[in-house]
């Protein structure tokens, strides 16, 4: 399967929009090569601002630019965008409901050998609790591109979680992308796997493995963590009566928590969560870390069997 990093979907969208919309401006904080925002800089140097290693200022400047009618896209590693500058995100941007877009690259454990300091495993929790903020977690290159295009079309703050490593391309340029709507990737009636980001590919793999054992798993891709598609989740709970969530993030506060909130309130069913279990990341090769932290297809399969046993 073809693989491509989501961060490049982000920059491709920026360049496309930059050509037709003079209000698109891009900012970075000394990571323009890594986030790939330098591709925008090369085309539109006058609309690109490198603020240096100063992420709080990055979001502050973006806020100011939005107040002059620009559509700023602030790019840096997601640990700094969602962590270092969190209060700027909260109070300046979200509380004021400013039209600022944030591209957080190098999210998750796949960031690899840099280790825990650089592996953002908290950003879903940190962003989804903020009123007014839309949070996109694209699963592949095309979804990242569409999320970025959609972000520019919307009014208000948007956070896009991007990754460093190439991940399988699962959707096509034609696949629909609508904020707040989950995407049914595979039909199934026995159990539902609800995933986001890089774990969507693992979940599809898991569904294939389960099929060999005659277990039909539904797979739902939540590219829009906020607003969350409650309807598709409640329907899955009703129809399959067992749910597994899967994310490249801490279990606490992430997709699993978000889905649980919906399920418990509306149609309680057994639920198992795949994610990093309350530990920091560590250095290692990206794929090796996915195995180490039990984020692989086989781990999802095990969780599906566990939840099926609970379903009875």
């Amino acid at each position, binding site marked *: 399967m073809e693989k491509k990093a989501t961060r490049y979907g982000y920059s491709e969208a920026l360049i496309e929009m930059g050509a037709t919309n003079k209000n698109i401006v891009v900012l*970075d904080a*000394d*990571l*323009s*090569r*890594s986030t790939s925002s*330098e591709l925008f800089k090369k085309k539109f140097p006058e609309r690109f601002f*490198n*603020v*240096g*290693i*100063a992420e*709080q*200022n990055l979001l502050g400047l973006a806020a100011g630019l939005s107040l002059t009618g620009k559509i700023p896209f602030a790019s840096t590693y997601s*640990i*700094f965008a969602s*962590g*270092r500058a969190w209060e700027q995100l909260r109070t300046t941007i979200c509380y004021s409901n400013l039209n600022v877009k944030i591209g957080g690259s190098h999210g998750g454990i796949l960031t*690899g*050998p*840099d*280790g*825990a*300091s*650089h592996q953002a495993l908290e950003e879903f929790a940190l962003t989804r609790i903020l009123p007014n903020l839309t949070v996109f977690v694209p699963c592949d290159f095309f979804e990242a591109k569409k999320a970025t295009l959609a972000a520019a079309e919307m009014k208000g703050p948007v956070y896009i979680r991007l990754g460093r490593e190439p991940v399988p391309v699962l959707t096509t340029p034609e696949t629909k992308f609508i904020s707040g709507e989950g995407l049914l990737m595979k039909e199934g009636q026995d159990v539902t796997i609800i995933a986001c980001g890089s774990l969507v590919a693992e979940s599809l793999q898991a569904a294939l493995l389960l099929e060999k054992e005659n277990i039909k798993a539904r797979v739902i891709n939540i590219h829009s963590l906020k607003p969350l598609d409650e309807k598709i989740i409640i329907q899955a709970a009703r129809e399959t009566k067992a749910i597994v969530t899967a994310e490249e993030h801490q279990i606490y506060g992430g997709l699993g928590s978000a889905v649980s909130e919906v399920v418990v309130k509306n149609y309680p069913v057994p639920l198992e969560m795949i994610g990093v279990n309350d530990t920091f990341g*560590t*250095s*290692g*090769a990206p794929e*090796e*870390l996915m195995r*180490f932290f039990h984020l692989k297809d086989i781990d999802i399969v095990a969780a599906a069997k566990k939840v099926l046993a609970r379903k009875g």
Partner: protein
Amino acid sequence: MEIAQLKDQAKKIRQDIIKMLGAAGSGHPGGSLSATDLMTALFFNILRQQPQAPRWPGRDRFILSKGHCAPVLYACLAELGYFPLEQLLTLRKLGSCLQGHPSCQDLAGVEVSTGSLGMGLSVATGIALGAKLDQSDVRVYCLVGDGELQEGQIWEAAMSAGHYRLDNLCCIVDNNDLQIDGRIKDVMNVYPIVDKFKAFGWQTIEIEGHDFKQILEAYATAAKTKEKPTAIIARTVKGKGVSFMEDREEWHGKAPNKELTAQALKELE
């Protein structure tokens, strides 16, 4: 150590850095090599430490605020006997105590975990304050990058260290004039560095960061100075010692392949 010995030691450290990065396949050679002479002088001549008892309370403290330059810290610690030299080759590998950025929970000799730039000088200032409260003669050293100086927290720390007149604190600025996206003045001009520290009440010393005589004199002056923290602004060359890496921004965060590792090691013989 005499200066001739320090030079030899620094050469070994540079070799260690290249070997470990070559084995890791990723990491940051540029800023590790630019800081090597400053770090060698500090670790081998200045810091009062006990490698066999890394938690000895009387030790001088060192904080690597620019945590991406972990290789130079690890090499110094290993050369001093904190852990076996062979372990250097586990850098950035799963299960290693040599994390991509220094982790104090994984390695004795690391005082606090770093890797997110701009945070270390505040911690160093806090340790210096604590030492004053204890009336201890512990000294605190903190290495920062010049790009790192763009973080606001650095100047909040500088303000507080000046305010509390922490003469037991010394900040070393590795002024290699490069960050990831290019020259400091082109990305986000943080110059003049000296005037900024002065304005916050610091003593400043400007030196050539690859001249051991100047380095040792600067550390000595810092130790003698009363009522003021000291900032040593050291002009350095990023990638120093490996010709193809010197002053090249592309060697900020990239490991040499097998062939270039061999070539670099040859230059460092």
